[in-house]
């Protein structure tokens, strides 16, 4: 009875905490400017299925893609076992579904076990790649401190979770063979789960029955505690991508990557010069801010991008400027954006829901103009992202802020602007010479 109460408390507390944190993240994302993304529902669902569920873009790098698939498949399928764990937890049963599901039960648990072994290999390989092999994109300076620790914590949590699954099934298998398991005896001599029927006896055969009951319970409780620990770790971690990859790919940019948005605030002012019949829509006396200075000048999609980023660094590893040693790193743009909107969120929490100016901004305090000006707008980062994050959209917003609000573009670019304005070309040629090539030899 006591265990049922503790179980109930765990589930309630774990779910409530997650709900509170999830609400905060939703609030933070909606601090971004509103944009409407409601078109092409069918294509959006297709994109989500292919990119998020199907992990299509991961396979540009086959080795990490396969390792990641192990973890991903194990994660998804293991959730099915939670149904039984929750049922058992609330009713005091033990493997309640085994008798009624029969062969299907054996199949499901076996599948979970096989995937768990693959995930076990996956986590070890990922720990190796990060900490010993030191894959360049996973060991860059921008990951020093929390990001590196975060990545390792996630992997260790996954590793521990898998160990709990095999403690539970392994010890229970030996108990069942001895006729001491709390599971209903169906007259057979083994659960018959693919992995634990061999591994269980191998590890636990020599142990006394009371000790095995303890190990089995540690595995069972460890499993469910870990699931809730993980759920509540997500909002603080880059690992949030396991949830947000889905909405983020759904709301992907479906247009040609080369198409940058035209700012309506500008069109509204410029258009009357060319079309006298055009009536401006925006109030000319209302202050207009151009471009992106702080994280709240971004759209909610930009902020959703930032929360969906798992810091894999494929963007940065494909960035021509980063590859040639410049300061720009698209991953850092996303990490900075998330850090800043989190900071704004905490500021609001501490000040009864309103933001109190802290004298900081995304541009300047997090992202330097040196980074912003280095970009080639080549879309390599956008193409590389496995969950369709668009760092370029943020970079262009920051450039608009620097040029239109702060008038601090590099000198050569100011020269280029005035050439276009005066000569209709980025260089200092007279517009009347534009057709000279026709008669030149």
């Amino acid at each position, binding site marked *: 009875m006591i265990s049922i109460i503790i179980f109930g408390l765990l589930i309630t507390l774990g779910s409530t905490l997650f709900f509170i944190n999830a609400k905060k993240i939703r609030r933070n994302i909606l601090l971004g400017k509103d944009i409407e993304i409601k078109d092409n529902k069918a294509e959006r669902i297709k994109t989500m299925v292919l990119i998020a569920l199907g992990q299509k873009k991961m396979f540009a790098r086959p080795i990490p893609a396969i390792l990641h698939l192990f973890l991903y498949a194990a994660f998804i399928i293991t959730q099915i076992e939670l149904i039984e764990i929750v049922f058992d937890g609330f009713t005091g049963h033990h493997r309640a579904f085994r008798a009624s599901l029969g062969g299907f039960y054996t199949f499901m648990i076996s599948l979970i076990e096989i995937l768990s072994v693959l995930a076990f290999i996956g986590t070890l390989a990922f720990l190796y790649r990060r900490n010993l092999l030191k894959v360049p994109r996973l060991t860059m300076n921008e990951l020093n401190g929390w990001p590196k620790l975060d990545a390792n914590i996630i992997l260790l949590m996954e590793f521990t979770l898998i160990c709990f699954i095999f403690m539970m099934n392994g010890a229970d298998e030996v108990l069942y063979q001895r006729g001491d398991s709390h599971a209903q005896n169906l007259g057979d001599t083994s659960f018959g789960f693919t992995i634990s029927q061999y591994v269980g006896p191998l590890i636990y055969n020599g142990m006394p029955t009371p000790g095995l009951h303890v190990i089995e319970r540690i595995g069972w409780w460890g499993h469910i505690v870990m699931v809730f620990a993980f759920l509540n770790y997500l909002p603080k971690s880059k690992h949030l991508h396991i949830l947000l990859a889905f909405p983020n790919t759904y709301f992907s940019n479906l247009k040609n990557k080369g198409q940058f948005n035209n700012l309506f605030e500008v069109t509204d002012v410029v258009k009357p010069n*060319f079309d006298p019949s055009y009536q401006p829509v925006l109030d000319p006396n209302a202050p207009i801010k151009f471009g992106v200075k702080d994280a709240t000048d971004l759209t909610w999609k930009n902020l959703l991008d930032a929360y969906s980023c798992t810091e894999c660094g494929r963007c940065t590893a494909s960035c021509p400027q980063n590859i040639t*040693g410049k300061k*720009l790193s698209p991953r850092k743009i996303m990490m900075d954006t998330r850090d800043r909107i989190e900071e704004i969120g905490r500021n609001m929490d501490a000040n009864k829901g309103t933001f109190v100016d802290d004298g900081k901004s995304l541009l300047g305090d997090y992202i330097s103009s040196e980074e912003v000006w280095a970009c080639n707008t080549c*879309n390599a980062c956008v193409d590389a992202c496995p969950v369709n994050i668009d760092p370029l959209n943020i970079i262009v917003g920051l450039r608009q802020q620097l040029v239109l609000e702060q008038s601090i573009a590099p000198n*050569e670019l100011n020269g*280029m602007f005035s050439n276009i*304005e005066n000569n209709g070309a980025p260089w200092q040629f007279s517009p009347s010479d534009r057709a000279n*090539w026709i008669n030149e030899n």
Partner: protein
Amino acid sequence: MEPLKVPTMAEKMANGEIPDILFWVGCAGSFDDRAKKITKAIVRILNHVNANFAVLGVEESCTGDPAKRAGNEFLFQMQAMQNITVLNGYNVKKIVTGCPHCFNTIKNEYPQLGGQYEVIHHTELIQQLINEGKLKVQGGEFKGKKIVFHDPCYLGRANDVYEAPREVIQKLDAELVEMKRSRAKGFCCGAGGAQMFKEAEKGNKEVNVERTEEALSHQPDVIAVGCPFCNTMMTDGVKHFNKENSTKVLDVAELIANANDL
């Protein structure tokens, strides 16, 4: 060589003619000495097939691409609306550009500002002319030569045009070689995003040197490009490695025009 026939829209209009297609030359194609050769190669192809085309001549102005990528949205929209006014004034329906940046901007960013046209890049036009049988291509001086194609970002990744330039090059009976970073994984030449007009930020290498190094690792006779800015960057890169004598940087239009003595 026959003199080029390059009618302007104004001349066509004065004669009561309506051209089928407008050739948008672009700033580089109009003013840059190297890029002007590409422009002329495109015209030679157009003349060869007797295309009913025209240029805007002095009425053309920068599309605003470098201003927009550099964050100057005001200047971009001023340029865009000025160009749209001219294009709509001539009732232009179809445009071929000699530059992927002009191509991208007019195709993707002009429509919401009132400029709706069918826009193709010159490599797509050449591909169409070959497929329609209007242009017969022989390998000529490029037969059996090793050609590596560099994808312009604003043609490839930005607009998913990967096959047109490759199909055209393959008509030359040449050996088309792919770099490891090609198509959607193509590596920028270093000019995009208005970098063409400024010094690079502090780093340990120039982007064009990195890219040219990759292209040269295949020991090509020709680095083929489809963008006047890529052309400049790759040409500088080839000079950096002192390979001007063994590797030429040529636009796809030049390959076709030169191979066929147009």
